[in-house]
């Protein structure tokens, strides 16, 4: 009897311990958010949110400073959009190939390679973009600046392809075998099976993959700092230099005087960035919950 009580007590301790560890990340996130808002919100004492978001001049250290982040916001939006345009087809098609078409041996080789791409430090990708891709673009396309929107989007695509591929591949892989067999048994070709059965069945997983890939691109700092060029302009073409939000924060935070207007404004940019990635993650969560595939019957 006593031993059973002992065991229950032990069980409770273990439970509490694991609850505690799981709770740590919640606490940390809450603290970071609190800090972020505490340091960022004072910005709106000296500039209205409208001016901040839609002002077209970013001259934080001028004698009459301007804190308009519209060019930075547009920089982030355009680079994320363009990199998604490159990364989504590449990532999803790679995933389809790996899950449905490739022979096990090919898969054994390619899958780790794609995953290895994810483990490349972003500074290495940035350096590659700066030293190899930028001069290449300048020489081949004869454009004035190789450090531009296109280059940054390309480098970010390299970084989001592994995320998109591995999450979509898992989604495609988990489509029940009966579905494929039924489709093939009805006389559909392999392509028809993939296009009309497998992809629709795994669409929620693929959507999640895409959104996770995009939120990786929008928050990435080192790469855009190194290869986006850094001009605070709303881009007119894909070969214009841009200055996305993370690169502004990274480049200017160290020099901004503590608790100055510039310092607060940089934290306010971080809030905008946080809200954007938060929305992306929320959307991913919503889609994957709403269209959850619970067995073959729900299709």
């Amino acid at each position, binding site marked *: 009897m006593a031993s059973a009580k002992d065991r229950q007590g032990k069980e409770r301790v273990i439970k509490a311990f694991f609850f505690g560890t799981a709770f740590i990340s919640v606490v940390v996130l809450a603290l970071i958010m609190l800090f972020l808002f505490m340091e960022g919100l004072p910005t709106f004492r000296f500039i209205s949110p409208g001016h901040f978001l839609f002002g077209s*001049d*970013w*001259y*934080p*250290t*001028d*004698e009459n400073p301007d804190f308009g982040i519209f*060019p930075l916001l547009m920089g982030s939006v355009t680079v994320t959009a363009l990199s998604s345009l490159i990364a989504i087809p590449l990532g999803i098609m790679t995933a389809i190939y790996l899950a449905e078409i490739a022979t096990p041996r090919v898969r054994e080789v390619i899958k780790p390679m794609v995953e290895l791409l994810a483990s490349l430090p972003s500074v290495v990708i940035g350096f590659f973009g*700066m*030293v190899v891709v*930028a*001069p290449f673009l*300048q020489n081949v396309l004869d454009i*004035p*600046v*190789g*450090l531009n929107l296109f280059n940054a989007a390309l480098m970010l695509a390299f970084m989001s392809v592994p995320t998109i591929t591995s999450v979509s591949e898992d989604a495609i892989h988990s489509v029940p075998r009966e579905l494929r067999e039924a489709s093939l048994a009805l006389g559909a070709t392999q392509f028809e099976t993939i296009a009309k059965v497998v992809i629709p069945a795994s669409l929620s997983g693929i959507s999640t993959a895409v959104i996770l890939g995009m939120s990786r691109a929008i928050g990435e700092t080192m790469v855009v*700092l*190194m290869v986006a*060029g*850094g*001009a*605070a*302009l709303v881009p007119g073409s894909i070969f214009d*230099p841009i*200055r996305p939000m993370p*690169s502004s924060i*990274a*480049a*200017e935070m*160290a*020099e*901004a*005087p503590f608790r100055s207007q*510039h310092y607060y404004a940089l934290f306010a940019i971080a809030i905008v960035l946080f809200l954007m990635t938060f929305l992306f993650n929320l959307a991913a969560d919503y889609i994957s919950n709403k269209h959850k595939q619970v067995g073959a019957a729900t299709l």
Partner: protein
Amino acid sequence: MKKIIYSLAVLLMSLSVVTAQADTTITVKGSTTVQPAMQKVAEAYMKAKPGVNISISASGSGDGAKALIDKSTDIAMMSREIKEGEIKQANGNGVTPKLTVIAFDCIVPVVNPANKVKDLTPAQLKDIYTGKVTDWKDLGGDAGKIVVVSRDSSSGTYEFWGEHVLKGERVFAGALLQASSGAVVQTVAKNKYAVGYVGLAYAQNKEVKPVTVSGVVGSVANVLNKSYPVTRTLNLYTDGEPKGEPGAFITFFLSPEGQKLVAASDYVPVK
């Protein structure tokens, strides 16, 4: 276990010794441009003299002058010379500002080695950086859009360039802002249409070509004989001749060891 207790005790004792000795504090206020060199030298000095604590706060040359006038600092860092009005205010408070030059600052425009342009005037540089001149053919080079590379707006180098070349005007928004002088060199080296500006140390890099300003080469010699136009001194001001602990610190600043650290912060040593 004994060992741990013993080492803890030693640690505590050494801590208390340090706190007991740190009775002299030198306060330093002023220019953010001088600060990097000040930081390095102060760290070395505090290491060499454990009893001295140096507190540095950098918010601008004007604040340095203000602090000197109201006697709230031992040393004022200034990247410009003290103004007449400030001297008068100081004298009124019984303070006699005394200048010690600790370094020179010299910024050199650089272009890609493939660029034919060898010389630019300060007026041309201003037009380039404010976006008024956009093609190299207007400056005697081969036709091609000028790619303007600048430092981030919060850097001291940017401020210096803004004051001396742009005369307070804004760098136009199309300029590529780079986070470090190294990145400026890298960008200019890889782009045949680019122009940038960097401290003297970075301009020695073989991958970029330094441009003369109104015919004068940016070099240590020309900085010292004051013929190079984009140059200035980095100054420390004290109340009267530097003496006591602040005086010893400034002497250390001018010693070979201190001047080596000045050079390591990319400034031109005075000695």
